[in-house]
């Protein structure tokens, strides 16, 4: 096992596109590092450079103390799990798992012992004599894992290993891979575009955008203190609501004007983000997490200046909670980052965003308590937990925190 270090790593393809630029990152020994980002952000390329399947255009990758730039894949001692599993179709499950050990010319008994151990760990024992095509998707995924763990490599590299599974199985395998990684303690780099996987699995998560590393942090920190708009918008499901707001001074404190409505920020918000003062009278991007919105009828002491009004478009009852989509008369934040995030969800989402901008209407998603009685079509009041608001600079997209950290202009 070993640390994997990226120093100033970049990758430019022969056609001139830059997939990764100046990546600086250290994955500690035994750490579960998740690379996350929308498609085309360079996360898979970064992983493939570690495996040796892509040449490194600039910088250095080290596995342990060894610089591996010029080391061929077979000598890097890393195990890769592919999105398509890439099982050897002509070999049985047993031989698939044993493949790397046989190449190393290990003793038969030793190979047998290791393969059976791996098969037991993964519940593959009944299938050892089968060919991959006689397995279900979940079983194939396990074989791919088995092929990796049997080698006891320096690091596991996983390229969206769960994205070909159905939702239920994905949740189960997510937990299994996490457990396996903790048990084995092998350094793991896990690439995904699914931020839920990133949040639930990673010791630390590296968010990438257009080949550039945005932020590396433990999941909770990423969630609570996104360094920029992109990270804030990408992490969290449902996503953070992003609106355009103007900071105004009222009654001695700051408040955020959203269209005709005002949210008073209160002392705590200002104390946590002293830099906000400098944005007085300016536009900022206001980020609202769905869980910080609640049906005002259920909150006994929500003051009038910490409420928003909106028309309910849609409610989704999940049993434990109620997802409420409501239209608020305030412009959505439309910056490069937001457009990119929308485009990643779908072209229609991006188009809707432009439309909403024109209409000065934003659809805000709130995670209400299941006791809420709001109905579609009603206009309702929503209590906002203003202590948990996020603010970003409109131009740079950087989060507005204190003077040293975050946006400085």
């Amino acid at each position, binding site marked *: 096992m070993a640390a994997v270090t990226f120093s100033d790593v970049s990758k430019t393809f022969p056609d001139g596109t830059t997939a990764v630029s100046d990546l600086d990152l250290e994955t500690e020994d035994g750490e579960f590092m998740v690379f996350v980002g929308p498609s085309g952000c360079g996360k898979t390329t970064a992983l493939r450079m570690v*495996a040796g399947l892509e040449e490194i255009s600039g910088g250095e990758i080290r596995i342990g103390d060894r610089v591996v730039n010029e080391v061929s894949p077979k000598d890097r001692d890393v195990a890769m799990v592919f999105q398509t599993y890439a099982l050897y*179709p*002509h070999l049985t499950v047993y031989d698939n798992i044993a*493949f790397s050990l046989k190449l190393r010319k290990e003793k038969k008994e030793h190979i047998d012992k290791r393969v059976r151990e791996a098969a037991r760990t993964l519940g593959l024992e009944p299938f050892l004599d089968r060919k991959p095509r006689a397995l279900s998707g979940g079983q194939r995924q396990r074989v791919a894992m088995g092929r990796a763990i049997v080698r006891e490599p320096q690091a596991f590299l996983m390229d969206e290993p769960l994205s070909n599974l159905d939702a239920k199985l994905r949740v189960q395998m997510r937990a299994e891979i996490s457990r396996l990684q903790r048990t084995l303690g092998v350094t793991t780099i896990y690439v995904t575009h699914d931020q839920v996987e990133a949040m639930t699995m990673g010791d630390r998560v590296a968010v990438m955008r257009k080949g550039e590393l945005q932020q590396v942090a433990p999941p909770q920190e990423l969630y609570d203190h996104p360094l920029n708009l992109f990270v804030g918008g990408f992490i969290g499901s449902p996503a953070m609501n992003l609106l355009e707001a103007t900071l105004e001074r009222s009654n001695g404190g700051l408040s955020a004007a959203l269209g005709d409505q005002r949210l008073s920020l209160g002392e705590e918000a200002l104390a946590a983000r002293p830099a906000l003062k400098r944005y007085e009278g300016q536009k900022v991007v206001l980020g609202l997490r769905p869980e910080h919105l609640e049906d005002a009828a259920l909150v006994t002491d929500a003051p009038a200046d910490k409420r928003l009004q909106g028309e309910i478009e849609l409610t989704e009852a999940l049993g434990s909670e109620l997802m409420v989509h409501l239209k608020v008369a305030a412009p959505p934040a439309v910056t490069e980052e937001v457009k990119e995030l929308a485009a990643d969800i779908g072209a229609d989402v991006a188009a809707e965003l432009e439309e909403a901008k024109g209409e000065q209407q934003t659809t805000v998603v709130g995670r209400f308590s299941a006791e809420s009685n709001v109905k579609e079509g009603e206009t309702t009041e929503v209590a906002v937990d203003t202590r948990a608001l996020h603010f970003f600079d409109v131009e740079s997209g950087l989060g507005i925190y204190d003077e040293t950290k975050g946006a400085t202009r």
Partner: protein
Amino acid sequence: MSSQPVPGPVGRPRGRALPSIFKKQGWQGLLFISPALLLLGLLVVYPMVRTIMLSFADTRANLKFRRWVGFDNFERLFTRDRGFFDHDTFPPEGALVNNLRWVVVYSVVSIGLGLLIAVLAARVRYESILKAIIFIPMAISATAVAIIWKFVYDPDPKIGSLNAVLNTDLSWLGRTDTVNYALIFAYVWASTGFAMVVLSAALKGIPEEIIEAARTDGANEWAIFRRIQFPLLSLPLAVVTVWLVINVIKLFDIIFVMTGGGPGGASEVIAFTMYDETFGNGEGGYGATIAVVMLIMIIPLMIWNISRFRSERVVT
């Protein structure tokens, strides 16, 4: 088993076999397939039946039936015809043995070269140009190939480029020890492109990720070929082999053009003796016997080929 009656599929009475196409469709079905049946019968079934009949017959010079001779033709072919099968020498000689030599040497060399080029070409930048060049001979008719190589093997170094290169004046096609290999080489040149194209396509069909997985699993290029690519090519390899073997059992044209079976019958093959007996010696019944022998050699390969295609899909 449950005793409950299980309802059968709608529209088909339970417990009865699927009615034959004729019963189900009636005379209309027959009408629709009759043009195809007619053509097949006229062009394939009738000639085949006629050939089999003739193989038990003696014919006049105009190939008209004269009298039945039972298995005489077959007996003569395998026991008394030195040109076809000479078992007095060791190893045996004759057109049959020579043809078997073709089957082995020609198939192995064509496929070996085709596979080698397919694998190596995938690693160079100008793959498509390279493959096109090697495929070009496939577009040349066998007769033209024969004429080209007749020039190449010409004993006069001023004409024969092989002798010119080697600075010799050997009669490659005139010596019994070189003639067959010279012919085989010419035919390999003409058909390696076929093996290469099929195998190259099959090779491309192997997902890149499988190769990458093997590479990260510690396989070097040789191990990738031997343990991954080669086994995954087993079906296309078998198909190409059968195809080439069938072709070479029917081999006729380049022998006819380049050597006419000579020198002294040393380069004769089965199809050539069939032609020679039928049209040269006017022994249609005997020629038909040789044709039947060819058919018997080819049929198992065809059956195997078809059943293999039915039973197994290409895994990748």
